[in-house]
């Protein structure tokens, strides 16, 4: 969603293309070629000699062909950056995708539950209340120490939760949507970070992020656009590396098994490729957190600018703001402006100020 709008920024397209797609593809094809040659049992030195003995025109054609393959694959990688991002977010339509989605979602729902200190405190308070009643109504002196011990345990647990509250809140803010959106949890960490940024404007200001972002983008200052484009570029780069490394591990693994290559080479390529993919994905998580933070910053700081662009007066109270955004969204979706709206002429205001 946000990414499509960001694509309009073409100022640093060339650099982004080279860094995020061309060079990774060049290295990918180069390594694939080297492993292909070694795994196939060909001697690289002899191949080089054979290549040297070729006609100049043939050599030129081969180089052009290689560059064409690299440029083509780099273009595909670059143009598919949104789909790659969606894949890592957890929007899967491949066979078994639903099963994987379920497993991942269940895990992250558990993680989110652990971060929901408020609910845990509520459950604990109920337990403590119950235990308190049991203690006060207990008639058996033998049972009393046990009940008291249980009560102490609950108090200690409450203390622990209170201590964890801030860190859990912080984690929740960065990595997961609010616990009330637990049904919308994504199966991957990266997906949840971006889902969090998507849900943030709605939770805080009642803003439909998907609808408003493309409009908000036009009132954002250049320095902000530059920062968010850089952050997105870093995210795309990490995901491109993760994708190509994963592909490298898979393709070379299959090829080396077919070619009955040495076991060490198979392990080096298969585990090496997937290890680099894992490291790149971890790096992408950090970049995604920075990207999500910037999106939140955009809504926090510039939403009033958008309201001014609608020629409306920004609301004075938080309740009023939620209502105002509700009305704007109603206008955008349904085409009906509330009768209470009064447009402000910002130019007239400026003139008045200058006259005074």
């Amino acid at each position, binding site marked *: 969603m946000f990414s499509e709008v960001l694509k309009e920024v073409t100022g640093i397209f060339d650099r982004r293309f080279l860094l995020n797609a061309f060079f990774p593809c060049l290295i990918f094809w180069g390594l694939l070629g080297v492993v292909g040659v070694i795994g196939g049992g060909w001697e690289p030195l002899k191949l080089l000699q054979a290549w040297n003995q070729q006609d100049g025109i043939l050599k030129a054609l081969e180089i052009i062909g290689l560059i064409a393959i690299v440029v083509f694959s780099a273009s595909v990688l670059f143009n598919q950056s949104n789909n790659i991002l969606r894949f890592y977010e957890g929007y899967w339509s491949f066979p078994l995708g639903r099963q994987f989605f379920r497993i991942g979602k269940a895990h992250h729902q558990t993680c989110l539950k652990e971060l929901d200190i408020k609910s845990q405190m509520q459950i604990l308070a109920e337990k403590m209340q119950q235990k308190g009643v049991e203690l006060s109504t207990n008639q058996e002196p033998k049972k009393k120490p046990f009940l008291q011990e249980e009560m102490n345990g609950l108090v200690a647990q409450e203390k622990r939760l209170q201590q964890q509250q801030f860190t859990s809140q912080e984690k929740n803010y960065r990595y997961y949507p609010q616990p009330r959106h637990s049904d919308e949890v994504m199966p991957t960490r990266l997906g949840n970070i971006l889902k969090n940024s998507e849900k943030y404007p709605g939770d805080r200001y009642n803003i439909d992020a998907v609808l408003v972002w493309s409009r908000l983008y036009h009132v954002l200052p250049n320095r902000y656009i530059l920062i968010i484009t850089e952050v997105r570029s870093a995210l795309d780069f990490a995901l491109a590396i993760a994708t190509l490394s994963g592909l490298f591990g898979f393709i070379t693994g299959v090829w080396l098994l077919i070619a009955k290559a040495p076991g060490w080479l198979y392990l080096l390529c*298969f585990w090496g490729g997937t290890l680099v993919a894992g490291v790149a994905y971890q790096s992408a998580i950090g970049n995604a957190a920075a990207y999500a933070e910037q999106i939140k910053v955009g809504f926090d700081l510039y939403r009033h600018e958008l309201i001014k662009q609608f020629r409306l007066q920004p609301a004075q109270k938080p309740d009023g703001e939620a209502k105002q955004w509700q009305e704007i969204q109603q206008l955008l979706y349904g085409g009906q402006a509330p009768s209470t709206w009064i447009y402000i002429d910002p130019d007239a205001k400026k003139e008045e100020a200058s006259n005074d």
Partner: protein
Amino acid sequence: MTKLGYLNLSFSLGHLFLLSNLILGSLGFVYLQQTEALSQLKVWVPSRDLPPYTLIKSTDLIEKTLLSRNIPSESVRELIKISDRYTVSTITKDKPITKKQLSPELTLDQKKLLQNTVLIGILATPDMILGGNLQAGDQVDILIVLEATEKQPNPPSIQFDNTFIFDIRSNETDSTAIAKSSESVVVLAIPADRRAEFSRSISARKIMLSRKF
């Protein structure tokens, strides 16, 4: 998600990915190791480095078990096909021997012909080696003719009959002027007692190699 008593185990996709990766990697490695063990072959290899133009004796060879992928497709593995043949390039110790590294198989007559000979290399133009059709193992007659002068319009010629061509090497990999003119080096087995005569006669004279039908 699985619940086991007090343990609340929750498997993330990362765990699944890691686990499947470890399993696939290990299975693939085991498969390749087994394939490798099944694809070993016994090959006769030199027990020492053999310089070019050395007669290989059976004592120069040992039998070794090598992985089939380390044995070139054009290698010669049997002892009978290697011994009593000459090397035409350096053969490294413990490495399989390829056809290109060996001279042609010699008949009894050729073995007799090679007795008491020395190997001498001469530069040959494409026409001298019959446009590339002359091969190692061929027998040729060599005619060395002096340049005709006014004083000696019919100079005498020197002939070396039934000479064995030991090896023909092209200079294509060389970037010198020789390579540019597509010259080759023909290694000839010249009778040892006529070595000096051959050396004297080839300088500044026209040499012609001719093969009999």
